[in-house]
């Protein structure tokens, strides 16, 4: 007997989300959006419960989670940092900003700082090309970034 261990609140939340979507297999992506929206990431147990509730194999859920870059199985930092690597940002030096962030945080892309404060990710185009290069810290967008500004931006969250 395989066991999915989750807290009561999570179980109830996930079951409710699935129910709202009619426990339909075709709704799996919408369900995952909502669940990740709540918990920030999709650990294995959560995927197993979603699969169970929607009546689909967990391999299919994982196949989806690992396909779409929006879904993640690693928890994000308290302040998730996303560096836009869209073309406009790239030609205006986004890579240098990313390198500087990696250097100052001491982590790679997709990782979380040991204190759990920051996580670093890349995304493709937030649609603020006018402000390129752009990074996001949580919901806040920082435009016209330069490697020099990295220190100041990080300082806001320390």
């Amino acid at each position, binding site marked *: 007997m395989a066991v999915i261990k989750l807290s009561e609140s999570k179980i109830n939340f996930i079951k409710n989300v699935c129910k709202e979507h009619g426990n339909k297999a075709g709704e799996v992506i919408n369900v995952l959006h909502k669940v990740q929206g709540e918990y920030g990431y999709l650990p294995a147990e959560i995927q197993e419960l979603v699969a169970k509730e929607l009546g689909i194999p967990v391999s299919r859920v994982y196949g989806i989670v690992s396909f779409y870059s929006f879904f993640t199985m690693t928890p994000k930092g308290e302040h998730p940092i996303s560096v836009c690597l869209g073309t406009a940002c790239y030609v205006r030096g986004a890579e240098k900003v990313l390198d500087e962030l990696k250097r100052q945080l001491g982590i790679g892309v997709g990782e979380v700082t040991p204190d759990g404060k920051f996580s670093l990710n890349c995304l493709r185009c*937030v*649609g*603020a090309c*006018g*402000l390129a290069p*752009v990074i996001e810290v949580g919901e806040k*967008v920082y435009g016209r970034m330069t490697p020099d500004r990295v220190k100041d931006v990080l300082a806001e969250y320390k």
Partner: protein
Amino acid sequence: MAKVKSLAELKAMREKLSNNLDIREKSNDPDSLVQIKVAMATCGIAAGAKQVMEHMMEKADELKLSIVFTQTGCMGYCHAEPTIEVKCPGKDPIVFGHVDNTRADEILTKYVMNNEMVEGVIPVNYETIG
């Protein structure tokens, strides 16, 4: 809101609505009603359009200016976000770019109140099919 039941009704509604908007603009106090549109698309908001709009609303209250603020979509001047369009009665609308709180204050105190030009005017560079 009752549902619109026919094309004729929709057309009548359009008449009424555009008149209403006109009246709102021109009637009772034609000299003091100013319209400000703030471009609130993702890049405008990212550049601080929300804060600027909030700030302007407060400032307008403070200055006892009666201004209608509306949000709108992207005006296309992403290089100059945040952008706002100010329409003073009887005049052509003017678009200002790179509007921060300081410039917002300036726009209100100088342009709106005293019709003085301020920096950051962006010429409208397109024609729109209406």
